[in-house]
């Protein structure tokens, strides 16, 4: 029987699901290999059980966490899809403030009060903290990046379909940057997070003329002290450096204790 795969979105820009819909050229062939049983962005179908569940987005409310636990109970493999699911991504920057402060900032004091006291609405509004998926349930694989890399997605699906296991190289972005023979960003005066960021993106931002801002999260065990010292030498203040590390919140939540 073909493996059944399902997609679920939590708090995210839904770009990672789109990145997967972007496999147009191979989409029909993928459908020969797997049955897509839930994909809210493209389908209306729903299914009770599935082999692989892809979770896009961070977990911001208890109702979302409940939904996630339910999904975990219905699947064999659970995959965090993209930076929001892997480490909270940009929205986790709001964790610096309390939930009530955040609500008040966006909706004003009155709405904030109603949202927190009217039981008809509070589950909808009850924002706790922005959490990564692995902070709530066990995660088997992380597909990193904002957005995810379609080749990594294809690799994972193909490997699981073939009865093998996916393998994601545990190496920094610099490796792929050098594979591509790029000029190092430091060479033209800017600074880069490539040395400490989990690769697999083919260094796409550097290929495109930018630098690495670390959307794929910190590689475990990296020499962060050295990186900070280097950025200081390049004239960045500690505020700048913290702001850079927090741009995608990549340094905040490290997926640990799970398969790489």
């Amino acid at each position, binding site marked *: 029987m073909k493996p059944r795969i399902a997609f679920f979105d939590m708090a995210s820009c839904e770009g990672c699901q789109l990145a997967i819909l972007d496999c147009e050229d191979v989409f029909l062939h993928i459908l020969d290999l797997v049955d897509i049983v839930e994909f809210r962005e493209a389908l209306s179908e729903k299914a009770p059980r599935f082999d692989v569940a892809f979770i896009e987005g961070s977990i911001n409310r208890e109702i979302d966490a409940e939904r996630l636990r339910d999904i975990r109970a219905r699947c064999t493999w659970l995959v965090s899809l993209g930076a929001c699911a892997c480490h909270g991504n940009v929205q986790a920057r709001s964790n610096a403030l309390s939930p009530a402060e955040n609500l008040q900032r966006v909706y004003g004091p009155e709405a904030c009060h109603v949202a927190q006291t009217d039981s008809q609405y509070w589950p909808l509004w009850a924002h706790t903290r922005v959490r990564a998926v692995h902070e709530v349930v066990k995660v088997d694989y992380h597909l990193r990046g904002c957005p995810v890399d379609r080749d990594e997605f294809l*690799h994972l699906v193909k490997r699981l379909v073939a009865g093998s296991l996916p393998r994601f190289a545990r190496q920094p972005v610099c*490796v792929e940057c050098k594979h591509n023979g790029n000029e190092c960003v430091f060479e033209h005066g800017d600074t880069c997070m490539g040395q400490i960021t989990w690769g697999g993106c083919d260094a796409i931002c550097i290929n495109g003329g930018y630098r690495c801002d670390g959307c794929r999260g910190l590689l475990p065990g990296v020499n962060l002290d050295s990186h900070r010292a280097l950025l200081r030498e390049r004239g960045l203040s500690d505020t700048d450096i913290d702001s850079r590390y927090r741009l995608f919140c990549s340094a905040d939540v490290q997926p640990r204790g799970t398969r790489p």
Partner: protein
Amino acid sequence: MRGFLTTRATVLDWLHTLDQLGDVFFPQPMGESSFRFDKVRKHSLLAFEDFDATSTEKPFRASTCVQPPGKKLSPNNEQIFHFSKNENGEYQLTPTLDDRQRILAGVRPCDLKAIHLMDRINSDGIPDAHYLSRRQNTTIIAHDCLQPCDQHCFCDATGSLRWREGADIFLTPQPEAKLLIEALTERGEQLLADAGFTPCKNIEGRKTLAEAQRTKPFGRQFNAPLQQVIDTVSNSGESPVWDKHVERCFSCGTCNLVCPTCYCFDVQDDFNVDDPDSGQRTRSWDGCMLEAFAVVAGGHNFRPQLAARQRHRIKRKLAWLPARFGDGSFCVGCGRCGHQCTVDIDIFDIANDLLATAETKP
């Protein structure tokens, strides 16, 4: 073998005509201040060496390309074979051998020596068919250096500056934007046969002229003769020098991936989505500085400490491979690793530090 003397502009035109034979590569500017060994196209800016540093034409002074020219002979993600199933359900496997003609031009002496060393590696023991197939269909037009390309260069110290072996044609800068063109092999001789360049009657005199112009001392020099460096590195086991030089290291592998004599690779298989019975095996550049390099099944890592990996890298260049092949240093002194490392960890400094600690030992 014959020699010619002609202007750079003529040589440029000639290089453009060579693309009838196959792809022609030459160092070309990229980004803000770097060079890339790239296919020569109609409007490409080619980075030649100049006789003296007075030329105002830009960009003539090429520093080393980020990726050395030798990498064209074992490209990243190189296909090893592809497979499919025939009507009888049997697998058909076809090795991918690239035997297209290509010309690597503007190869500097350090990179030339590196190609020679890779020839040794790939012919050693069980030869590597994929490398050799490319190599044997490659013509090399090397280009002398009269000034060190940047402050990281130490090619003279490693014995690469005057390297000629492996080149089919050798270009030496001459005054007035001219070049001395020498055929070093039969293949080079043939290539130059109908180029229509003016023969040079005084090849030796021209070479002497260039030699006199060469910067002296050329680039950085070790604090001891090369053989002593090799002996010292060979005898350095546990040493605080290793630890000192990895304090700031990211284990990012850049130093491996830009080195012209690093050749380690990883292998990947893949099958096609539209026909899962077909696919290919490829290999990609790997590096011994990367943490997972020596991890085996079950997770045991044979070189978990950064210092052990750094020592491994340096010793391959300056101890083990020299011992195995007797061809001198496997570091050709191109300076790429020190240049590209974002925290300035430089094999040159490490070697000098090892010399210094060896001296202070009783």
